[in-house]
């Protein structure tokens, strides 16, 4: 891998992720709108939102850590997304395996927690307490899924996993239960319905975002695009055989985001302890059953 | 066990019975003086057992007199030992008696049990602690008070 290639990967991968992620945000909003019998936003609405937030006059900062929190949140996902193997850009992905990746996914939570904590707003802190608790909830099934996949494919490298699936069958066929558990965990990780209490998008004044104004909020919007992209591609690589080209990969990634979303939008929100209870019960059970088959 | 009905057997039985009576008295008596008497009996029995070890049937006292040069003599050693043991016993008993006087005077009682509990209380008071087994201070005994964890 020469330096040029590397540079290209490092520059283009975040860019692709940003664009794809925005399309996913759009799709998500469309789906929810359709389910609520609305038309939904126009195509560039996610971009408009970000631009608008960045363009605000009032940008309230509560200190350096506040900024760093946002940077860590965005940067963590960018790092994670770089570690994902996508067609033609697998060079860097070989440097870290799926364990590293799952750790990268924890960094944004911590970053946001730091940032919100610095704001000295108790409402924000409450939100962080919930967010971290939720992380504890969804990471257990998630790590089970990662373990099962890694064991099954006999590799901790995503590239190895994809190779295995392309030789054999897709993971979702060989391990359907684990794949379902993975979907659950993913939903929790994305903070979407019914596990969205820690983001609390509907009551922004009393959630973790209470002190996020202007580009702070914009940063989080950017983070969301990366987050959706990472989650979709990760799941696709784990269970849906990755893709030899973007044409095969991206539809899978979109599907991963869209499918659970359209089902889960029906459900009301769970309380924090219920989030733990649900996520530690069903997906973990599914995961364990499936592990029993795999091992 | 036929030989219990020989002379030796009967003598031994008597000696053992004597000391057993004394021992029983030591166990069940409460009165200090009775305890002392029981001790005397106990010792007497033991002394008898000791002196019996030199016993020979038809033996004579181990004193050389003119007429007894041919006779079998009893073993003189146990007799000497018992002589010593008896005197030792006398000394100890006299000592005990004097102690009993003083104890009686101090506690106003001759009952061993009363004296024991009073003694225990006195020791505890001297040491500045509650007497063992008292119901007044059921302080929970803990190795170390740790905290909940």
């Amino acid at each position, binding site marked *: 891998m020469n330096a040029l290639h590397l540079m290209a990967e490092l520059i283009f991968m975040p860019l692709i992720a940003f664009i794809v992620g925005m399309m996913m945000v759009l799709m998500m909003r469309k789906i929810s709108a359709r389910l609520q019998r609305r038309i939904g936003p126009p195509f560039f609405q996610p971009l408009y939102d970000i631009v608008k937030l960045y363009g605000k006059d009032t940008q309230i900062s509560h200190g350096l850590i506040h900024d760093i929190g946002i940077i860590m949140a965005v940067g963590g996902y960018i790092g994670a997304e770089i570690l994902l193997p996508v067609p033609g850009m697998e060079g860097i992905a070989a440097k870290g395996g799926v364990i590293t990746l799952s750790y990268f996914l924890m960094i944004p939570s911590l970053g946001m927690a730091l940032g919100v904590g610095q704001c000295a707003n108790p409402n924000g802190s409450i939100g962080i307490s919930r967010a971290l608790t939720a992380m504890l909830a969804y990471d257990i099934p998630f790590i089970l899924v990662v373990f099962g996949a890694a064991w099954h494919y006999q590799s901790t490298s995503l590239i190895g996993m994809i190779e295995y699936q392309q030789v054999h069958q897709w993971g979702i066929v060989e391990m359907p239960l684990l794949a379902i558990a993975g979907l659950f965990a993913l939903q929790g990780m994305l903070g979407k319905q019914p596990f969205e209490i820690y983001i609390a998008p509907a009551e922004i004044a009393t959630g973790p975002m209470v002190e996020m104004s202007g580009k702070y909020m914009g940063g989080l919007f950017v983070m969301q695009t990366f987050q959706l992209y990472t989650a979709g591609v990760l799941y696709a690589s784990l269970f849906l055989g990755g893709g030899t080209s973007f044409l095969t990969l991206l539809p899978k990634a979109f599907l991963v985001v869209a499918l659970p979303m359209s089902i889960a939008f029906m459900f009301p929100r769970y309380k924090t302890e219920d989030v733990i209870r649900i996520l530690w019960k069903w997906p973990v059970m599914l995961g364990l059953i499936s592990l029993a088959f795999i091992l | 066990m036929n030989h219990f009905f020989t002379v030796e057997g009967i003598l031994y039985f008597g000696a053992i019975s004597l000391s057993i009576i004394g021992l029983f008295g030591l166990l069940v008596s409460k009165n200090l003086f009775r305890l002392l008497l029981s001790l005397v009996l106990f010792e007497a029995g033991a*002394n008898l057992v*000791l002196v019996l070890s030199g016993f020979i049937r038809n033996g004579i006292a181990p004193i050389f007199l003119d007429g007894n040069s041919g006779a079998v003599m009893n*073993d003189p050693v146990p007799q000497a030992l018992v002589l010593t043991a008896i005197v*030792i016993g006398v000394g100890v008993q006299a000592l*005990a008696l004097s102690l009993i006087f003083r104890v009686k005077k*101090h506690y106003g009682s001759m009952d061993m049990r009363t*004296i024991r509990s009073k003694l225990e209380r006195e020791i505890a008071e*001297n*040491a500045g602690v509650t007497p063992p087994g008292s119901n007044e201070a059921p302080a929970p005994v803990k190795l170390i008070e740790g905290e909940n964890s």
Partner: protein
Amino acid sequence: MNSLVLLMVLPLFAAFIIPVVAKFSSKLALFTGPVVLCINLLLIMSAWVKVGSGAHAIFLGGFLPPVGIVFYIDHFSLLFSGLIASMVLIVWPWDAKESRLYSLYMLLSAASFGLALSADLFNLYVFYELLAVATYGIIAKQKNSSATAASLRYLFISSAGSVMLLLGIAIIYTLTGTLNIAHLATMTENLHGFAGLSAFALIAIGAGVKAEMFPVNSWVAEVYGTIPRQLSALLAGLISKLAVVLIIKMLLMVFQVQAAFDLLLVVGMLGVISGEMVAWRAKDMIRMLSFSSIAHLGVLFIALSIGGSKGLWLAIAIMLHHLLVKGGLFLMADRFSGHFDKLKGLAHHSPMSAAVFLVFILSLLGVPPLPGFWIKMALVMNLAELGGGLYYLAIGVILLATIIETAYMFNLVQTMYLKADADSTPLNKRYSASYTFAKLFALLLLVSMVFVSPISKRLKDIANHSANPQIYIHTVLPARYLGEKS
């Protein structure tokens, strides 16, 4: 060499003349005892050199054994004689007024010397009784009347024990027709049946009353709780060991059989565990030390149950160590007695005494590199070499006891190091002579830490020599008894 009998005779002589001397000068009477003990120390030292690695027998009255009484002199008995002389010197009642008390102390030391030297079973009994009577007297003499009551209760149990001892002697004499221990050692097969061993059991338990053996030691707390600490130091440090010496003489010369060892092992284990358990609950220093002393005597019995020279050298080491440590602790307890809570802040009040106390208990617990550790180590290793369920159990018991001991000892230590309440004065006395001796003991302990190797070698030599029945027999018995095995 015959003059060594003076070890026993001189204190006796002094005891007899002290009341008369006191009529003329009470000062002179006071100093008679220490002078005699110092002479004894000199005698012992010269004899130590003279005896060398050998042994010597003194035929009292010039009658050859087995008909006469024999004093057997080797380094073991001389070692104990030395300890007796120095220990009595340390606790000598300088402030007492009655000359008869000096007599009693002299009688006590005479009896102790006799116990250490004599090689005749009944003679040992006589000295044992003399020791007992002198002890009752010294205890009962104390100013508080509760000491008298304690002494009386002690007298009852101890006399009953003596009767058991006498019964044991009677059985042995009936079986063998002799009382000389060397002579007995030549006819062990007579004694290794049920009758002989029950005689041993009777002797061991009878003498065990003084040796703080497990079921018969309930006097310990009562007596130590009522008498002055120096006296406790004497009783716990020395007198209890002398009763053990009696048992050792019987065990090693005559009853080297497994059943006897097992008996000692079981009572030893029970003593260890019960003593530590009760000490754990104690709330004042004296009670704690009393029961800890019981436990350590239990360890001593366990060591004896190893048997042979190994058992003996360990036993000697344990006895010496316990003498130093427990003696020292009791001497220190003079300064701080009472409920533990009263000791709060002691370490700030008097850092030195807290440090000395720590040295003692660390050695007691067997913390390397203090001597206690080496003793415990050697004991446990020797037990393990023997193997067998009971011995393994004994190892477990000893180590469990160490843990319990740590718990209560260090609860006390942490109390000492707490900040004192403003008005409390933890020290009973600012200064006392016994505290100086305690410091001396601690110093000795630390010095012996440096010389662990030579000391243990020396003790092993002594034990090798003293635990060998053949040497004993050949020294004591005239040639014509050696051939015949009755």
